[in-house]
């Protein structure tokens, strides 16, 4: 499988998180998977400005020629997308959210009803399974994890996929890699 890991760790001094993801990558590669591990904090990603140019001017891609073209290309051509981030104020980092905001071009602006709710139509045939990996912060509690998980379950509804994994870095990297291998 092609696995894309978006590393949303904003802090280069948090080496433990980066090392965890490197170990995860190595384990997945040992299992024969192709892994793209992207360090978002080092990429030239701009905030989405809500212009909808990715829907109405340059359909499918952000009008700003930033690194989102690269991240979106890799994401949509993967089998598994792992969004990884330390929790910060109870949710994933703004670095990861910034990259995620640029996913809207992966969908069409048009709306359909799914289970009685409005959602956007697919642009692509195939969307990757989603996994979320977070690192607790000092004051994290189970409620934070539940809130984050629920938000990503909603994201999956809109991204035409399903949340196949939600883990914290308290689980060993090998176990998380094995769980991804089993998808």
């Amino acid at each position, binding site marked *: 499988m092609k696995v894309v890991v978006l590393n949303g760790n904003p802090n280069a001094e948090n080496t433990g998180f980066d090392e965890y993801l490197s170990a995860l990558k190595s384990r997945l590669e040992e299992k024969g998977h192709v892994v793209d591990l992207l360090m978002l904090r080092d990429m030239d990603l701009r905030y989405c400005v809500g212009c909808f140019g990715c829907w109405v001017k340059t359909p499918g891609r952000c009008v700003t020629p930033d690194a989102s073209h690269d991240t979106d290309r890799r994401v949509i051509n993967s089998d598994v997308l792992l969004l990884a981030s330390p929790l910060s104020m*109870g949710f994933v980092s703004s670095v990861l959210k910034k990259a995620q*905001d640029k996913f809207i071009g992966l969908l069409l602006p048009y709306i359909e009803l799914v289970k009685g*709710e409005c959602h956007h139509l697919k642009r692509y045939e195939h969307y990757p399974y989603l996994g979320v990996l977070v690192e607790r912060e000092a004051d994290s509690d189970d409620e*934070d994890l539940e809130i984050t998980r629920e938000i990503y379950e909603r994201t999956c509804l809109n991204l035409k996929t399903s949340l196949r994994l939600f883990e914290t870095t308290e689980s060993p990297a090998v176990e998380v890699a094995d769980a991804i291998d089993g998808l």
Partner: protein
Amino acid sequence: MQLTVYNGSPRGAHSNTRLLLDRFLRGFEHRSGETHRLHYLVKLKQRDEQLRDFVEAPGPVLLAFPLYTDCMPGLVKNFIEDLRPLCGRDKLPPVLFLVQSGFPEAHHSRYVERYLEKLTRRLGCRYLGTMVRGGAEGIQVMPGIMTRKLFGLMYKLGSRLAQTGELDPGLLRKLASPEQLSPFAQWLYKKLLYRMSNNYWNGMLKKNKALGRCKDRPFTEKQ
């Protein structure tokens, strides 16, 4: 009373969030003595001033933003991260929120609402509530007759906040309606509103000479 307002829309002053806030603030200031101080989070260079005004706010703080991929925009998350040093500090202001989305149902925004309530507990602020509104994407181009009720509700919410220091629960419910689409609304959506929504997007695509490319898949890799 002074209200300190943060508009977290990446569109800044050209946002639907601003249109809603305008009406809310008019209501808030309907009687003399009420004032507001407004910040646009998109002005990143003003972050120090934005944070200082949060700490020193003499009255409630309102954080308003559009729903982006089921949560707050990255820009707003970045601001929230900058509030970290304030957690647990004494005398922080009470906080209220406005979340608006393009989806017609309010339900989409309920998940981030739960996050926002928890955020106030993390900071140690009193939570005054969240105004949730769906169907806000088109309000810039809607004729007045279509926005009159919505803007009236925003005005009343602002006015009530000034009078009581609280968000009126009845008005919040009205603002959020429809929470979810009824079977009739779903039928109507399929029959009529689909077309209206598609026409809205197709009109913009046509204006940009991009209608023929509307379903492009620019990132598909050849196998």
